[in-house]
């Protein structure tokens, strides 16, 4: 697709004119020089391309630049990092990088890029729909991309050609672009939320646990370390642990009842009053006291009499 690959200054005057007409640009006067056309071409068509891709021709361009594009955008971001910054961002992702020198830098850049992409993929799967980045997420990326594009457009036309292919939501290949774009939005996300803590594996999700008791698994013993639902549950479980099981309670109650019944039954068979011997003893004493004065003198009395007489 020569329009985007070639510098407009290399195009023929008639070609420039037809391009301008195709893009609804008012043509200059018939006698104007080629430079005027080139200027208009640069001004209108290239900027249009940077923000809007809709025609079939331009889809073709997207396909052409696609090979270098995905790495191109990320490498642009990563190339800007110094060795120390690259090392630090690798460390943030849990990679303890070795010395970053000329022979190793490219490898570490690629690894960081891989980590960023896997993080982005992880995020999108966490959000529920795997292809969400093809729609809403990448639109954010598009907007960011457009802003950057418009800035870059002032710098060089070549950059426009590469980055212009990013905001192409109408093209069938937009799915392929979603990755680098969301990578960029992820980088921006990191910039906005620096407190977000990446972990070594890059996995930010908690691991998925199987449902307890499902598929014939025992409920309690399969996952002894599974946390209880609430402190209330924990408390109840603790209390339950201290209590005696209900069937033992019933057994103990029955045993006690049986023992009491036995005691009661044995009392009925041989009625025994603990007060009776006392009463017997009392009546004997009373009887002996009544007999006392009439009977022979007590040995004590005799002894007293002896001492008095002696």
């Amino acid at each position: 697709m020569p329009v985007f690959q070639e510098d407009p200054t290399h195009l023929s005057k008639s070609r420039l004119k037809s391009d301008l007409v195709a893009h609804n640009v008012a043509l200059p006067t018939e006698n104007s020089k080629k430079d005027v056309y080139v200027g208009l071409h640069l001004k209108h068509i290239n900027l249009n391309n940077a923000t809007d891709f809709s025609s079939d021709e331009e889809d073709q361009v997207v396909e052409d630049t696609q090979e270098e594009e995905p790495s191109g955008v990320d490498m642009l971001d990563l190339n800007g990092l110094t060795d120390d910054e690259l090392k630090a961002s690798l460390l943030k992702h849990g990679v303890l990088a070795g010395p970053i020198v000329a022979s190793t830098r490219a490898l570490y850049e690629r690894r960081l890029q891989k980590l960023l992409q896997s993080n982005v993929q992880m995020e999108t799967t966490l959000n529920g729909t795997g292809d969400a980045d093809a729609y809403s997420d990448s639109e954010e990326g598009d907007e960011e991309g457009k802003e950057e594009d418009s800035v870059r457009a002032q710098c060089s036309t070549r950059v426009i050609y590469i980055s212009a292919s990013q905001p192409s939501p109408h093209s069938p290949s937009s799915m392929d672009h979603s990755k680098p774009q969301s990578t960029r939005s992820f980088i921006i996300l990191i910039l906005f939320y620096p407190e977000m803590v990446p972990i070594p594996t890059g996995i930010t999700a908690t691991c998925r646990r199987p449902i307890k008791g499902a598929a014939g698994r025992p409920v309690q013993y399969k996952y002894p370390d599974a946390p209880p639902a609430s402190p209330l549950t924990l408390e109840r479980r603790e209390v339950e642990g201290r209590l005696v099981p209900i069937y033992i309670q019933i057994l103990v109650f029955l045993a006690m009842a049986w023992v009491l019944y036995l005691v009661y039954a044995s009392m009925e068979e041989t009625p025994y009053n603990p007060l009776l011997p006392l009463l017997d003893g009392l009546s004997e004493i009373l009887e002996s006291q009544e007999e006392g004065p009439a009977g022979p003198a007590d040995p004590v009395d005799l002894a007293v009499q002896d001492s008095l007489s002696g």
Partner: protein
Amino acid sequence: MSSTSQKHKDFVAEPMGEKKVMALAGIGDALGRRLEEKGFDKAYVVLGQFLVLKKDEELFRDWLKDTCGANSKQQGDCYGCLREWCDSFL
């Protein structure tokens, strides 16, 4: 590695000294020539790269692929041979 080649055994049996890069397991004539063109003429230069990548398998494999276009088996052979050599002699 389940099976080690004779080349592998020869390499890890003794200090590498001044052996050429072709002495590394997995590095044949073609790959060796490509490595020599890039300046990695001796086995110890490749060892240096292996060490500067902190013996990381993935990074070393990537590097070997970039540098001389080694395939997966060649990468694995070369990595295993250098790692085993380091275990014995480093």
